[in-house]
């Protein structure tokens, strides 16, 4: 599959603020975000956090839906390997992530737009780094414009 690069107009568009849907697990990454808040750490305000009980709860349907509804990126945050509150939910997330990422690439979603990170409850700093980094990468890619679903009135010959 050939590379889709953002048009120069898009990369020059400094007004573009990426919207990133972030699924954070209740036990680690969500707490890291909480800690970042109470520690007054500043990071890019582009993520919309959805708290899930486990990264393993992130159904690939959620990710595809987020992109279909206009998210520019999706970030999943879970506990480090071996630390999952439910023993192995994060491993399930990891397996799904790799298969889903390859599928998304075929559908025209560049790899920078979909990311999985292990961030423990103590790693507020790492959360900041990951979010800032991803926001910049997605910003460089430009807005994600999903092809709109057709309405039967709109299809004309």
């Amino acid at each position: 599959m050939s590379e889709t690069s953002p048009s120069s107009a898009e990369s020059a568009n400094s007004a573009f603020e990426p919207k990133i849907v972030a699924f954070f697990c209740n036990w680690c990454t969500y707490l890291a975000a909480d800690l970042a808040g109470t520690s007054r750490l500043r990071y890019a305000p582009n993520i919309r956090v959805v708290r899930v009980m486990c990264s393993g709860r992130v159904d690939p349907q959620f990710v595809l839906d987020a992109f279909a509804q206009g998210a520019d990126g999706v970030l999943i945050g879970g506990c480090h390997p071996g630390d999952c509150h439910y023993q192995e939910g994060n491993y399930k997330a990891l397996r799904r992530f790799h298969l889903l990422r390859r599928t998304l690439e075929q559908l025209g979603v560049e790899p920078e737009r979909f990311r999985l990170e292990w961030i423990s409850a103590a790693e507020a700093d790492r959360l900041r780094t990951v979010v800032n980094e991803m926001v910049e990468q997605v910003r460089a890619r430009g807005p994600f414009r999903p092809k709109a679903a057709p309405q039967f009135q709109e299809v004309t010959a």
Partner: protein
Amino acid sequence: MKLKVAFYWCAACGGCEEAVVDLGEKLLDVVAAVEIAFWPVALDFKRKDVEALEDGALAAAFINGAVRTSEQLEMARLLQRKAQTVVAFGSCAHTGGVPGLANLYPRETLLRTVYQALPSVVNPEATHPTPEVRDSGRHLELPQFFDTVYALDQVIEVDYYIPGCPPTPALLADAVTALLAGRLPEKGAVLAPDRALCDECPRRDSKPEKLALAEFKRPHEVLIEPDKCLLAQGLLCLGPATRSGCGWRCIDGNMPCTGCFGPTSRVRDFGAKAISGMASLLGCNEAGTIIRALERIPDPAGTFYRYSLPAAPLRPRPAAPSAAQ
């Protein structure tokens, strides 16, 4: 007076027509009970015969195939006007089907590949399909080839769906019987059982409680045991994600399910759910091992969206055609 029905095909392979013929002697019962007013593959009725019918004169139109050309769209709209009930017949009409995988590529790439680039193509004059042709003072109009393949309900309102690639003759016979008896379910229903194929699989007892596969195997690489759960043998069988009603034709043929009956009513995105289910079956926990194991699935979009890409919530953004293609 007998109820009138019509059969029509859009972007399809002809397999769904075969399913009607496969009714065998039961087809005679169908013909005894209903009048087939239009069936291009078998009977010599023309479009003008359908146009001559009063609106709503057909009790049902069974339309198979996806919608890819302006002619298919016109026929779908015409039949919708003439029929009281529109049934999307088969995977392509239901969710887009195999032709729907063309949505992974832009129209220009497809046309250039088929009319120029393929090694076996001889086309020195670079003839290319166009909607209009003028030759020796004559003017010919051809259907337009859309840049997107649509499932039937994306272009007209559909009342019922009969899934399958192709559907079974039994499902068609049941639908016709229900139509005659006037006991069709609520509009929008899929006329097949709402359970996963895995639940009803004849090999179900050999499915282990927990699967932890080291890798996926492809059917040509292994000698497949005839009675053992195909997942337990490492084959990518989409039975856990797929609606039942097919009569286990592939399983009985010792081949894994490829998902042609589509999702059950609880799932919106078949491909996403299949990805979720299949990836979870791996037993490995380390990223490198997982990536290597998943490399055994060379074409994930084509595998998990084989029959449902046009119906998926996230529509592909095909890469712009590059000069190399």
